[in-house]
C-alpha cells in the first residue's frame, strides 16, 4: 500500500483515531507520519509515552509514588471514566489501584494486566518471572520447556535434512501439546 499523502513511498504507519464517535484512519510512510506528527495532525504512540511521574489533575496527592500511569489510562482517569472496568473479585477500578499504590487482589493482575505492565517494568526492569513456582504450575512449566526444546531440535533436524528424525520430533511435540491442552 502506498502512502496516502505523498503517494510515492510504501505506507508503514497506520493510524486510527476516534474522536466524538468519528473514526479517522491514515496510512502513511514514515516521513509523512513524522511531518504530520510535527504539525499536530496525528499523535503516534512512542515507547516513552508511558508517563514516569504520576500526576493527574486533581487527584495527584492521593497517588502512590509507585504507580506510573500509562497515557491511555491517564486520559481515562482524567475524564472520570476509569470506574468503568472493575475487578470481578475485589471490585477495584484501576483508579483505586493508583490511589492505593497497591493492587487489590490476585485477580486484578489479570484484569488490569495492560495498565500494570508499565509500572511492573519500571520497578523490576522486566515482566517475566524466572524463579520457583507452586507444584501445580511446575508441571506446566516443565512441559512448556520440553516443547520449546523439542521445537528447537526440530529446526535443527530440518536444517540437517534429517527428515526421519524431524517427523519423530513433530509427533512428539504434537503429543505434548495435546497433553498441555488437557
Amino acid at each position: 500500500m502506498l502512502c496516502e499523502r505523498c503517494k510515492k513511498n510504501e505506507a508503514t504507519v497506520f493510524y486510527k483515531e476516534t474522536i466524538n464517535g468519528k473514526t479517522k484512519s491514515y496510512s502513511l510512510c514514515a516521513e509523512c507520519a513524522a511531518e504530520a506528527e510535527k504539525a499536530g495532525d496525528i499523535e503516534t504512540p512512542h515507547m516513552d509515552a508511558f508517563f514516569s511521574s504520576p500526576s493527574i489533575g486533581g487527584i495527584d496527592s492521593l497517588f502512590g509514588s509507585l504507580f506510573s500511569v500509562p497515557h491511555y489510562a491517564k486520559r481515562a482517569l482524567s475524564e472520570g471514566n476509569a470506574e468503568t472496568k472493575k475487578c470481578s473479585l475485589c471490585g477495584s477500578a484501576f483508579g483505586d489501584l493508583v490511589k492505593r499504590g497497591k493492587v487489590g487482589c490476585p485477580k486484578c493482575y489479570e484484569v488490569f494486566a495492560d495498565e500494570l505492565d508499565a509500572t511492573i517494568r519500571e520497578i523490576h526492569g522486566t515482566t517475566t518471572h524466572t524463579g520457583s513456582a507452586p507444584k501445580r504450575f511446575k508441571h506446566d512449566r516443565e512441559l512448556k520447556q520440553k516443547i520449546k526444546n523439542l521445537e528447537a531440535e526440530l529446526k535443527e533436524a530440518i536444517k540437517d535434512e534429517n527428515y526421519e528424525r524431524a517427523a519423530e520430533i513433530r509427533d512428539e511435540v504434537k503429543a505434548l501439546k495435546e497433553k498441555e491442552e488437557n
Partner: protein
Amino acid sequence: MMWYESAGRDNDVAVSSRVRLARNLTDYPFGSLLNDASAKEIIERVKNVFEGVGDYTFTDYSDLEEIERKAAVEKHKVSAEFASSKKPRALIESERKQVYIMTPEEDHIRIQSILAGFSLEEALSRAREADETIDGALNVAYNDKLGYLTHCPTNLGTGMRASVMLFLPALTISGGIRALSAQLGKIGLTIRGMSGEGSSADGCLYQVSNQITLGISEEEIVSKLSKITESIIEKERNLRQKIKSADNGRFEDRVMRSYGVMMYATMIDTNEMMRLYADVRLGAALGIIDGASLSELDKMMVRGMAANLTCENKEIKTPEERDRARAELIRRILSGAE
C-alpha cells in the same frame, strides 16, 4: 532459639540473615482490603496446614498485649505493621527452625526465617520448607508470567526479600555508607540504617537487601546478596584494622571507657545502650575486650530494648525504673549470669 541467642558465621560484621517470602491465596482480596471474616478464614486455613507439622505453634496476635507485640518487633520476629494492625492476625512459628509465619499481613502469608550471622542460604532453605508445606495444601496466587502475586507490585515474582543485618562501625566512622548506598542502588540492592541515619548512636547497624524480586530466581538473589555482603565484610574488616592501628591508643581508650560504663553504670537509656553496644562490640570483634562475646552483646541489645525489658520486668512503671533495669540486665549478661 532466636538469632541473637547464638553465634553465627562472620558475626563480627554480619549480625543476622533473613529471608522473607510473600504468599497470597487466590480467592481473597489482599491485606488492606481484607475484611475481618476473610482474615479469620485465612488464619484458620493456614493454621490447619501447620497443625502437627514439626514444632510449629500458633499465637493469636489479636489477643496479645501491646507490649508483647512490640517486643516481638524488637526481636524482628514480626513486622511493625503486623504488630500494630487492628485486624485479626496470627503468628505461626517454629522455634527450632527459626521460622515465623505472619498471617495475614500486607500479604496473606509472610514466611520469614532469621538466623544468626551470615547464613542466607540456610535461611532460604528453611523459608522454602515452610513454603512447600503451604503449597501442598493451599491454592497460592501465582501466574506464569508474573510469578507469585503480591499486594505491592514491588514484591512480584519470587515474593522474596533477602537481607543481612550488618554491624558497620568502621564504614560509618569513615563516612563510607553513602558511597556504598549509591553503589548498591546500581545493582538492585539497597542499604538502610536500622534506626535512622548512620550516626554512631544507633548501634551502626544496617540492613542490606535485594530490591528487585521479579526476573531473578531465589538462588540468584541469595548469591548476588552474598557476594556483595562478602565484599562489604572484607572492606569493614580492613577499615577496622586501620582505625585500630592509626590513632595512638585513643580508640582503645574509647572502647574500654564504654566497657567500664556497661560494667558499672546503674542507669542506662536506650540511646546510651546503643552507643555502648557499638563501641564494645567493635572492641570485642578486634580482640581489645575479651570479657564480652559478640552474641552476648547482641542478646543484651535486643533484651535491653524498651518493650522486651518491660515484658521481662512487669513491675516497671517509670522511665527511670526502666533505665535501672536495663543497666542491671547488661551487668548480669556481662557477668555471665544470664
